[in-house]
């Protein structure tokens, strides 16, 4: 509250200074920059991912309804400079997007609120203080879509690197139970053990009631050896495979949930607003993504004998022809 009053006073003083300077007695509406107390820092990145951040920011602005200060940060960002600017703008909360945004926010040692979003990372220990909005879709949503497509599903297999995804698997196990599924999760700390784990799963799977889940895991879900193995074997064994990565659906995985950038942006904006209002973030620590869209591979669905058609309103359908 004190901060807000200070901010208003500052604006009034600045406005007066500005009006005096320009010789006009009218107070200009857009003063210093006419912005609210929210700043967004995002990675200085090119296409195709630039549009992702543009859409996230669009969602944030949509929710916050005030102009927000935006900073693109590169690898060698001048943090001191950024801090000064943030102070000058009287920023109260920073929404840090992407790894670069998050890294930069880490160096901001003032009492800014920090909302992190658009990141894949997974910490060893859960963050208790800050909300880290992961791009990892909530397993509960993945499992519920699986049940819709494949009502006979009973067991979900997965392979994960505990350093990256132990936190996720704890949450996933609970989510599975609530969906009347059993999650069988194999740990693998390197690629070799991951491949062995997949081979075990593929050999033991029952096509009628099992499914395989590929989480966002750079150790165990690897493009050139794991993915071809999983795709080919699951095709010939008619095993349903679903993924937390959109790119896999084009290659033949049955379905995936991917970020609805605008909705995710609005959620980040909402978290920032909550912090401004109450000093509390609400949900904090690793926050699973619930603002999702669904991509399905109809060719794979047909091959598996599942009932799926474009009319069911999937957000993205593969193959494109």
């Amino acid at each position, binding site marked *: 509250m004190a901060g807000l009053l200070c901010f208003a006073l500052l604006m009034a003083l600045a406005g007066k200074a500005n009006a005096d300077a320009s010789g006009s007695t009218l107070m200009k509406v857009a003063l210093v920059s006419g912005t609210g107390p929210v700043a967004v820092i995002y990675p200085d*990145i090119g296409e195709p991912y630039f549009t992702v951040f543009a859409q996230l920011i669009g969602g944030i602005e949509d929710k916050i309804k005030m102009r927000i200060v935006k900073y693109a940060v590169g690898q060698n960002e001048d943090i001191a400079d950024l801090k000064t600017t943030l102070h000058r703008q009287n920023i109260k909360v920073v929404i840090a997007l*992407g790894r670069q945004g998050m890294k930069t926010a880490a160096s901001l040692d003032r009492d800014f609120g920090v909302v992190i979003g658009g990141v*894949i990372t997974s910490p060893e220990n859960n963050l208790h203080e800050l909300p880290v909005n992961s791009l990892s879709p909530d397993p509960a949503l993945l499992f519920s879509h699986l049940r819709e497509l494949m009502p006979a599903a009973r067991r979900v297999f997965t392979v994960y690197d505990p350093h990256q995804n132990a936190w996720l698997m704890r949450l996933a196990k609970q989510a599975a139970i609530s969906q009347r599924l059993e999650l069988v999760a194999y740990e693998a700390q390197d690629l070799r053990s991951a491949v062995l784990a997949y081979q075990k799963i593929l050999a033991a799977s029952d096509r009628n009631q099992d499914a395989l889940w590929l989480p*966002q895991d750079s150790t165990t879900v690897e493009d050139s050896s794991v993915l071809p193995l999983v795709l080919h074997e699951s095709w010939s064994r008619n095993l349903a495979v679903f993924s937390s990565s*959109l790119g896999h659906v084009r290659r033949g995985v049955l379905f995936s949930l991917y*970020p609805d950038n605008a909705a995710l942006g609005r959620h980040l904006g909402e978290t920032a607003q909550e912090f401004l209002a109450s000093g509390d973030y609400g949900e904090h620590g690793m926050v699973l993504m619930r603002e999702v869209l669904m991509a399905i591979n109809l060719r794979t669905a047909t*091959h598996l004998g599942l009932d799926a058609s474009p009319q069911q309103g999937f957000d993205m359908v593969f193959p494109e022809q």
Partner: protein
Amino acid sequence: MNISIARYIVAILAAIGSVVALAAPESEEEALALAYGDKDTVSIATGGKQTLRLAPSVASVITAEDIAAMGATDLDQVMETVPGVHVSKLVTHNISSYQIRGITGNASNPQVLLLQNGIPMNTLYRGDKGEEWISQGLENVARIEIIRGPGSALYGADAFSGVINLITRKAADTPGTEFGVRGGSFNSRNAWVQHGGQWGAVDVAAYLNVGATDGSKQIISADAGRLHGATLAPGPENNGFDAVDGSFNLGYGKYRLNAGYKLRDNAGTGVGPASALDPVGKEKSERISADLSWKDPQFAQNWELGYSGSYLHYHEESIMRIYPPGTTFTTGVLPNGVLSGPGRWEDQARVSGYAAYSGFSGHHLRLGLGHDNLNLYKVRTLRNYYIGTTPGPQFGVISPDLAFNGGQLVDYSVRLPHLTTHDRKIDYLYAQDELKFASDWRLTAGVRHDNYSDFGGTTNPRLTLVWDATLDLTAKLLYGQAFREPSYNEMYGINPNSNGNPNLIPETIKTLEAAFTWQARTDTRVNLNVFRYDMKDVIRSVQNAVPGTGSVFQNTGKQHGSGLELETTWDASSSVRLTGNYACQESVDEATQQDAGYAPHHHLYLRGDWRFASGWLSSTQINRVMERMRPAGDTRPAVPDYTTVDMTVRTDHSKSRWEVSASVHNLFNATGLEPSLAPGTVIPNDLPVVGRTVWLQVMHRL
């Protein structure tokens, strides 16, 4: 700073530090790729809802990104890159002819159906995209879908050798406002503005483009004028024109409204309306179109419903000098030259509806019906000459008719109009079922019946069998029948040298085709198509049995052909993509048992897209057209092969609000020829392709 805040900050730092330290992926892009996929999937993910296409035959999709990479500024340039298609030029009005799989040889190009957002754009006079089509810009195009092969089971008439669907941008395709300016060879210049946004619950896209060009000036070394005593050859073609294009697209709930405007004015007549150079003739065409559609993919359990209505108004008119002053005919000399000023006005109104039902397990049914009213309601015939209509030696011969016209352009609509007006009504019905009859096997069967008020009915089926053989390989077997309805000129034209025949029936084509799609590697995709077609009742102008009574259009031709198309895309690295295709075909005119002529037997296209520096993209295209034979009756040597190379460089406009691009077409100024019609007496030395051209373009986004 008090203790609690300090502890708070330390906790944050520690937490963030631990998050950062354990971030496993190498880079920001790699991390994001885990959620969004690579550049192809992320652009779909951020690009708004995908549009599902009707199950196509052999479809090529060219996106706006492809168009920018190719440096294509006209539809013709895009069509040349499609496997199995070669773009040739027709003598009159500089119209392009899309030769698909060897099907060509007509004086216009009516065997290809052109759609814009699913609405037919073909005009009624010749059944083609318009005698004064002139050009089609691409700034407002979101993507182009091309079906090679028959499509009448879905689209009805003219979906004979292929279907082209231009899909214009919606609000999601152009967020915000974008300005562009382009200038280049032949004093070509245009400027445009595009906008996409939301007005409350309505998504809006708008586009306006204004431009002009002096036109390319290929030299025609010998023309028809020399046969009549006065020629302007050697002389340049006349391809200049002014252009205005506009479009408006609104989406509200399940409704979508498209409106479009296309004006081409002050346009030159190409090589001349009768193959004699005409530097003074000017023509104009104007097209206004609007369509409203409603679609509910989930109208009820298992039901999808939709309907649409469209209206198109088109008119073309010209004042041309068919032959220059001094031209001598057996009946005398026209001191002003032979002048003609035709004009045609038409309205096309269409309504249609469809329902799709997926309640029967393993089946997906679709039923549709529609009614079209195609009315060519006004014809203008200005001339300063007469064409003999008395049987005998003067039949079909141009005479000065000075007593009637005094050598000036006068109204001949009572004495000898060039076309009668006509209102054609079509009713049609189609049905399609896609059924999964075994694991990995799907059969799509469709049929459409069209009933034309002027020539009766035609029924066209199609069958497609699809086998998902493995994860990486899909095989298809396709059979389709299509028709080309006789054009208004072929039925109602009044021209002693090529008279209309109201008793014509449609041309028909049957095609059998096998198609294979193979994902050879993660980064390499290969498509192979092998086809065979049979055409019959081809409409040609045939001399009447009684000498001295001219020629009339008859269903008389038969042609068959076969060939294959091979295409591949290879992502050689994250910054290099290579695309290539090769097509071969052989077509035989059954009346003469000789090569049907004109279209290339072999066609090779290669393109490399290279992100050579951060923020810069370059694209190089190589196109080689090979082995074009002459049809029977044309004794000229075969048309020589030619190769053109194009290069385009542009900035990557993601972060910057500015985008600059530059392009060179036919970089090495290669000489190439497109064949003139047999027997080659009027334009004996064929039509030269355009030499080297350049353009520079700047775009700015607000």
